[in-house]
């Protein structure tokens, strides 16, 4: 439902179909049905990458992602998860520590994904207009390029080495940041369960260095052939 509404919202700017379709009405409806204005595809993509970095770099934020089932975008803005009840000895409430991430690394990754995989081009396409065979051909470019970027700039390993579907036991004191419990989460450790996803961990990040004057917001320069 959300996807459909968002699609209609984007389409208001498209020149086609606007005569016959009651677009203003749909737009109105979308405003009424959602609490805030929905982000466009593009800004969702950028949000997703920002979130990726924040999740990797910020344990508290990652914990929030894990804990609330909706995701960070719709998370209530203010209250960070209060750590386990602290002894009342603390004289004053400690101010919440939130890190600001610089957008440079995210912009850099987007640049790489556009250069190697044409990801921004791909995400901006309207898939409805094309046959699956055409989309498949483009997807090869995107897939191959994304794989190259991941391989060249990250070392990514599974969090758990066991095969998915295997029964595993989590001893007391397991790393809750890297293993997420789902389903019937009751009782206390050791927890026994089935591994449904192995998880991924970036063990190394090798992003290029940037020149001081480099404008990272240019994700791909316009090309002019002389």
């Amino acid at each position, binding site marked *: 439902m959300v996807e459909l509404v968002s699609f209609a919202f984007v389409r208001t700017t498209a020149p086609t179909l606007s005569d016959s379709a009651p677009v203003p009405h749909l737009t109105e409806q979308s405003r009424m049905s959602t609490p805030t204005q929905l982000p466009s595809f593009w800004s969702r993509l950028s949000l997703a990458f920002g979130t990726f970095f924040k999740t990797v770099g910020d344990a508290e934020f990652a914990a929030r992602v894990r804990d609330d089932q909706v995701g960070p975008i719709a998370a209530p803005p203010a209250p960070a998860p209060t750590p386990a009840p602290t002894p009342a000895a603390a004289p004053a409430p400690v101010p919440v520590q939130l890190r600001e991430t610089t957008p440079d690394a995210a912009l*850099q990754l987007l*640049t790489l994904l556009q*250069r190697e995989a*044409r990801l921004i*081009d*791909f995400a*901006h*396409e309207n*898939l409805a*207009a*094309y046959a699956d*065979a*055409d*989309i498949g*051909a*483009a997807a*090869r*470019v*995107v897939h*191959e390029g994304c794989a190259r970027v991941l391989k060249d700039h990250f070392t990514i390993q599974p969090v758990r080495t066991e095969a998915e579907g295997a029964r595993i036991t989590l001893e007391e004191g397991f790393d809750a940041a890297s293993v997420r419990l789902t389903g019937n989460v009751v009782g206390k450790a050791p927890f026994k369960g089935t591994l449904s996803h192995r998880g991924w961990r970036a063990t190394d990040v*090798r992003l*290029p*260095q*940037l*020149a*001081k*004057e*480099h*404008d990272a917001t240019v994700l791909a320069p316009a*090309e002019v052939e002389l």
Partner: protein
Amino acid sequence: MSAPVNARYAIGIDLGTTHSALSYVDLEASDGEQTAHGVLPVPQLTAPGTVEALPLLPSFLYLPHPDELAPGELALPWNTDGDSAVAGEMARSRGATTPIRLVSSAKSWLCHPGVDRRAAILPSDAPEEVTRVSPLDASTRYLQHLRRAWDNAHPEAPFDQQQVTVTIPASFDPGARELTAEAARNAGYTSATLLEEPQAALYSWIQGSGGVWRKQVEAGDIVLVVDVGGGTSDFSLIAILERDGKLEPHRVAVGDHILLGGDNMDLALAHLVARKLAANGTQLDAWQMRALTYGCRGAKEHLLADANATTWPIVVPSRGSKLIGGSIRTELTRDEVTTFITDGFFPRVEAGARPATRARAGLTQLGLPYAQDAAVTRHLAAFLARQAGATAELEGFEGRVTSEHTFLHPSAVLFNGGVFKSGILAQRVMDTINDWLYMEGAEPARMLEGADLDLAVARGAAYYSYARRGGGVRIRGGTARSYYVGVESSMPAIPGMEPPIQALCVAPFGMEEGSELELPGQEFGLVVGEPVHFRFFGSTTRRQDQIGEVLDFWGPDELQEQNEIQATLPADGRTPGDVVQVRLHALATEAGTLELAAVARDGQRWKVEFDVRTTP
């Protein structure tokens, strides 16, 4: 050119046609054949304002337009002195869309005898306003980039205090060797030595085996090194001798310079696929053609690595931002790869096959002299046949070659170069050689395992730097050619015929480095202030000729004419026009180059130049 005393590292540099790399051995952590080694990640621009450290430095130089890049976008971790030329990955990728500003294959130009290699001639198709560079200058810049990368990473061990080796193709003539040494000097390499690439590949294999190589080869083995790089193919034969109970590799023969490599293969496939697309009405522009070449390389690698795959899709992405509508999908089939690569470049030919040559049209001089026959196996057959007698005089090899052998029988093969990442191609070469051996009733040759195909040359060069300090196994062999100057014979002149010439041996085969020989008996009169030219010849097969020997006749394959050489006596202290009697000396330098010198009776000496500026 003395070896640095306080070196902490032995450094090896692979100055390749398409890629360069720097490898090193830590001298303090190495002992005997156990070496601690690594490959230096080379910081380089990968896009404007973006610096990445990659294991390989693409050997490309881009000469940007003054308005092309925003200021500060060319910053590197070291001071570039405002030099705007870009080396490395960004040069390659940017040059793909602006080829008129891209210098590529500088190394092939460096050994192109038809051009002045110190003249600013590259890029050869650049318009007037582009400031061109010389092949020598381009090579200097790659070497300089590597030196700065090292100094940036190892401020505690400055580059010019380390033991450095730079590799060259075994087929390089004395002129090209000297130019490489000169490029190294210009780049601030104070004590670099040169090493032939196939030898470096064998050193790397020896190093990689950690001592086990003695179990994989034995005395009496003849190792054939087949090195097919991005732009050149290079062959060498290395015999394994036993001296004082120790195995000692001897390089006994090197091949001719063949401009044929992996890039030719990718291009051949791209043209095949482009023709297929054109038949369906899709015309590709130059930009798409390059993307297709890139796609073909990937498809070729997949199809040649996986024997079960029958087709591999190729997508040429659109140039504009409409990725889906504008991309062209096609595919490469196994049959095409087999026909064009396996059978086209590595056909199963007979041992008697020879590469086809045709007379060149007069205008081809402007470009690089690419090999006319694309079949690597035919070049290989010709090489082994020419070297049939290479081991005849070698200690321990007497009587092993009979008159029935039409070619030299290798007993082991070492592959080098990215092309052989495909097991199918390596196997094809092995099968072809073993067919030849079978036809002459010989045992099949075996493939030496464990070669590192991309970085072997750099690693081997570092190992050689290390071995020169007494640390490990050394390959012997000396110079791989004998050299001759042409002298007019004293026959009566016949009208309408050029006077026949004789070849006077001035440097025999197998001169060990550091040795100097004087041409006996013969003195030449040089006129002060006037350059004297000699015709100059080299031979990879005439091993017995001693210095001073005069040849009246030689087979068409035996002697190859090189560029003219030139001796000029400067006028300082002498009267121009005077004739000075000199003797020729040949010197195999420690640095791995050959020098000819004219020595007067009073001991004064002048260098004879191999690289004479040719006036077009």
